[in-house]
């Protein structure tokens, strides 16, 4: 009983620590610039919408948001389209080198992105991909691909081999096997993977900042633009950040059940 309480308390504290900066950002976005920097911090204040008005006046929020949505969804779809066949073959037709290939894929995530910035930039410029949504979709899907393949591989491995063999006996081609049996069976896992990929792509800032300027810029670029050049305006920055994080927060909140179900998919079977 006591450990249960301790665990609950630890859980609440961890959640609180993670949630507090968001809450503070949200509160600050309704303060004036003066109250925003006050010490000690003002807890009671008269809320104002001026910051939101100023932010929306200065930049076309809708365009940034649309870019974010297109890039996050596009990258996720592309990554899934590549990762599903890859994970399928590795999970069901493994060779001696499968384990090595998987580790190698994951190891690319340990490479700092800045290490390949120059070559990527030059390539993108050469192919006219700079400041295009397609350009961002390509680089983002490549960057989430290792995680997506790895997660799908683990989910596919949970599907009993005999079910796929039954499918083969029933006369299914590998394509039919994939679409009629494997994908429906691993739907919770695929959903969780897609959700994670969308969130990662939404939050991605490095490539958006370096490969886009105006047309394809996403909400991370939108937020960053408020931290320069006239010095820091905390209240306006908070309003911009709130606008940038709100969609994904709401999205995450709506999809949390599928997400949790997908993550525990293997454990409950």
């Amino acid at each position, binding site marked *: 009983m006591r450990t249960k309480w301790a665990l609950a308390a630890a859980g609440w504290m961890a959640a609180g620590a993670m949630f507090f900066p968001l809450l503070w950002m949200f509160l600050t976005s309704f303060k004036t610039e003066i109250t925003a920097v006050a010490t000690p911090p003002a807890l009671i204040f008269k809320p104002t919408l001026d910051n939101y008005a100023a932010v929306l006046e200065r930049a076309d929020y809708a365009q940034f948001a649309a870019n974010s949505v297109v890039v996050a969804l596009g990258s996720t779809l592309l990554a899934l389209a590549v990762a599903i066949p890859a994970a399928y073959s590795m999970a069901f037709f493994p060779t001696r080198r499968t384990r090595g290939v998987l580790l190698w894929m994951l190891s690319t995530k340990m490479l700092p992105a800045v290490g390949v910035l120059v070559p990527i930039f030059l390539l993108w410029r050469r192919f006219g991909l700079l400041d295009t949504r397609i350009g961002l979709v390509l680089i983002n899907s490549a960057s989430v691909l290792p995680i997506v393949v790895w997660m799908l591989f683990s989910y596919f491995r949970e599907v*009993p081999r*005999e*079910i796929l*063999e*039954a*499918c*083969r*006996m*029933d*006369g*299914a081609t590998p394509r*039919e096997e994939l679409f*009629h*049996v494997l994908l*429906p*069976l691993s739907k919770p896992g695929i959903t969780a993977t897609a959700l994670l990929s969308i969130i990662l792509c939404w939050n991605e800032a490095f490539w958006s900042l370096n490969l886009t300027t105006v047309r394809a810029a996403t909400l991370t670029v939108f937020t960053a633009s408020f931290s320069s050049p006239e010095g820091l305006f905390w209240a306006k920055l908070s309003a911009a950040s709130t606008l940038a994080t709100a969609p994904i927060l709401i999205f995450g909140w709506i999809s949390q059940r599928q997400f949790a179900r997908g993550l525990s998919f293997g454990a409950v079977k």
Partner: protein
Amino acid sequence: MASIELRSVGKRFGSHEVVRRVDLLVEDREFVAFVGPSGSGKSTLLRMIAGLETVSEGEILIDGQSVARVPPAKRGLAMVFQSYAIYPHMTAAENMSFSLRLAGVPKAERDAKVREVARALEMEALLERKPRALSGGQLQRVALGRAMVRQPKAFLLDEPLSNLDAALQAQMRLELVRLHRELKTTMIYVTHDQTEAMTMADRIVVLNEGRVEQAGTPLELYNRPASLFVAGFIGAPKMNFLPAQGAEGRTLGVRPEHVRIGEGGELAGEIVALERLGARTYVHARLTDGTRLVAEAAGDTGVREGDRLAFRILPEGRHWFDGSGRRVT
């Protein structure tokens, strides 16, 4: 209509030989059981026939045609898996009609077929249920139904009853025999349970370490086991093995029903345990040289644990095996 022929079929996983030069002809409409302990290669053999496993050596012929290049679905065989392998996201009816759907059979025709099979298996009430809402025995029926719907040339069954409780197993054994008679198709049945093989099969193939030890009708195997291995594997309780007196290296095998108690017998021993089944009693004894012996007695004998008794072996119940374990006639 299907005869299945194996011509010196072998299977190797790396350097490990799982199946060694198996020659076998399964006749059309025959019910053949592959029995053996785990690791004897019986499941691998079945999976090679199904096409789920490649053949390392030799060839497999179905109706006289080599199937080396024929994929599983085109072999005209249906398989029932040990785990049933029911598609969890489909209803029982969808599971059963899946192969027909893949083959492009129109919906009305599919439904009619599924209903017909469901009637034969007395499972019409289960058709719209999802697998999670079905018991083990019911899943078993769905798996059988899925195989029957395809009207295969032969059924391959891989330990289909091992996940059922004893009462259900006995019931399904009878039902499978009835199905075999009604469907008039070839069936190959893999099991580690010799009782299943004895009660259902027309012919039993005993496998040991990837080799065929003996193939024959249940009673041939019971009455004239070709080796110590078969003698020990077929029949419950097991055959008794006694070191033969006078003949060096030889073993005398005798089944419990061929041992008589207390009638001026040549063997003496002490009763160590009694299994009273009502209609008969199994008497477990330790002989003076330390060997264990099980004797079957009709009804309830008056003997008790600790009694010292004499045992006699009936002449017609003696099986002789040489030093290498082969039968000596």
